[in-house]
């Protein structure tokens, strides 16, 4: 197979290479919430939003705790020329990202609207509306794009109903959660969601961020946005540990987890430590039947962006060797400011198999898609 991040590339015989890449983290957003999402919301919720807003577990109505690195956390060149916010114009997304980078499978993860709203009924209604919106505005119009089923995961029953409503549709490739949950992710309150995802043949994609109501680090609120960003690897290490030790992977056959936007190089070290701890504490960790690294190796994938950029580039290759070349999925994070360009993201020499895995094949296995 010839993976090409550049659709113009020619192979040695001069034929156009047409095998595209998979981008596992793209953020669409409504250009006009009222026009695009209201049609999927009951009138009472439309009125509610107008009167009370969408209050999240954070002290700000419109913004986040930390000002982002760029306006709207986005590349400055991603504001569509016709107006609207970054990621709100399909034609421009095609022109700026999907076409030039030869994206054949683009996994969309809508952020900031729906999940972790304090009024749980509103959260359920908005997640559901956002799922219909993904179909209406995106997946029905662009077959390269696939959606993520947003769930109000504070209420597992409602989340399960939402997963079942979309199970089997080829518009969606995963169930979406955010990493900073109100309770650690191994908590049994979430198990029905994981079971429903596994039953639908979908992985749960956990994107970094979210507002669980606790500080972004275990040691409280840090001073800088960059610390908020760095804290994603901590929160994801904590959630993987919680899921392993609570026995999620053991109990739910077929459960798959994709960790999105939290870095990657920390995973091997985490697995080493968990194995050592587990061996010495089997009396307490009775739900864990096999070494934690087994579950991690079998059930977890990581997206690449923001990829580590060590001065000695080979170190990144070493890290992926330890994680497994079948486990890392290319992601751009388009249109966000910390975008990784597929042509630059791995500035090292790769074997054909490594490239194929990283840019394409791993995504098809993580999402359980047949590569056609």
């Amino acid at each position, binding site marked *: 197979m010839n993976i090409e991040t550049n659709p113009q590339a020619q192979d040695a015989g001069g034929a156009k290479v047409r095998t595209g890449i998979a981008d596992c983290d793209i953020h669409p957003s409504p250009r006009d919430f009222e026009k695009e999402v209201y049609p999927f919301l009951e009138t009472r919720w439309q009125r509610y939003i107008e009167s009370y807003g969408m209050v999240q577990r954070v002290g700000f109505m419109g913004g986040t705790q930390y000002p982002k*690195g*760029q306006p709207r956390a986005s*590349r*400055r*060149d991603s504001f569509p020329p016709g107006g609207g916010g970054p990621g709100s114009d399909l034609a421009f997304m095609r022109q700026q990202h999907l076409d030039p980078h030869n994206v054949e499978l683009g996994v969309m993860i809508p952020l900031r609207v729906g999940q972790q709203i304090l009024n749980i009924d509103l959260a359920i209604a908005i997640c559901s509306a956002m799922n219909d919106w993904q179909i209406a505005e995106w997946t029905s119009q662009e077959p390269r794009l696939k959606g993520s089923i947003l769930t109000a995961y504070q209420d597992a029953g409602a989340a399960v109903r939402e997963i079942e409503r979309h199970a089997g549709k080829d518009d969606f490739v995963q169930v979406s959660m955010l990493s900073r949950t109100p309770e650690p992710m191994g908590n049994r309150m979430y198990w029905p969601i994981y079971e429903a995802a596994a039953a639908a043949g979908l992985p749960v994609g956990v994107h970094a961020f979210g507002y669980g109501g606790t500080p972004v680090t275990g040691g409280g609120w840090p001073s800088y946005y960059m610390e908020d960003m760095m804290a994603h690897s901590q929160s994801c290490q904590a959630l993987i540990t919680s899921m392993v030790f609570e026995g999620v992977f053991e109990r739910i056959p077929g459960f798959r987890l994709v960790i999105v936007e939290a870095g990657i190089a920390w995973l091997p070290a985490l697995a080493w430590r968990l194995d050592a701890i587990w061996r010495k504490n089997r009396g307490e960790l009775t739900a864990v039947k096999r070494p934690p690294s087994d579950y991690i190796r079998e059930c977890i994938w990581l997206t690449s962006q923001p990829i580590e950029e060590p001065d000695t580039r080979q170190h990144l290759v070493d890290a992926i060797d330890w994680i497994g070349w079948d486990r890392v999925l290319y992601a751009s994070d388009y249109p966000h*400011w*910390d*975008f*990784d*360009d597929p*042509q*630059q*993201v791995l500035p090292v020499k790769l074997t054909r198999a490594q490239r194929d895995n990283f840019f394409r094949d791993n995504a098809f296995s993580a999402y359980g898609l047949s590569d056609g």
Partner: protein
Amino acid sequence: MARHVVASVEEFDKTDRKLVQVKGRPIVVFRLGEEWFAMSNRCPHMGGSLCEGQLISLVEAERPGEVTMSREGEILRCPWHGWEFDIRTGQSRARPAAFRSRQHPVSVVSGAEAESVGNLETFEVRRDGRYVVVEI
């Protein structure tokens, strides 16, 4: 190094920048008052398009809270990850030793001189006009 006519000065009446192609290479030309700068449009970090970047001031602080701003418009901020480059030297502010954007000498010449520069295929040159020339 060859000289290339890339634009007429009037094209900068309403903008402070222009993206041009020279021998297939994207070059961004900036006008800062009467000064001209040109550099490769590809950010040396990951290739962000520098002509979409903001021109900001040099922001420095001797100690926390004592912030000074100077050299207005002389620092170019990449539209992607926000790396800042000195428009005069191309040097990265964060890691001057490791990264610099590729600079090219720019000059402004009269129409008469522009004709002698050659490389005019895409240009109709008026003798009384003024033209921007980039050396590559």
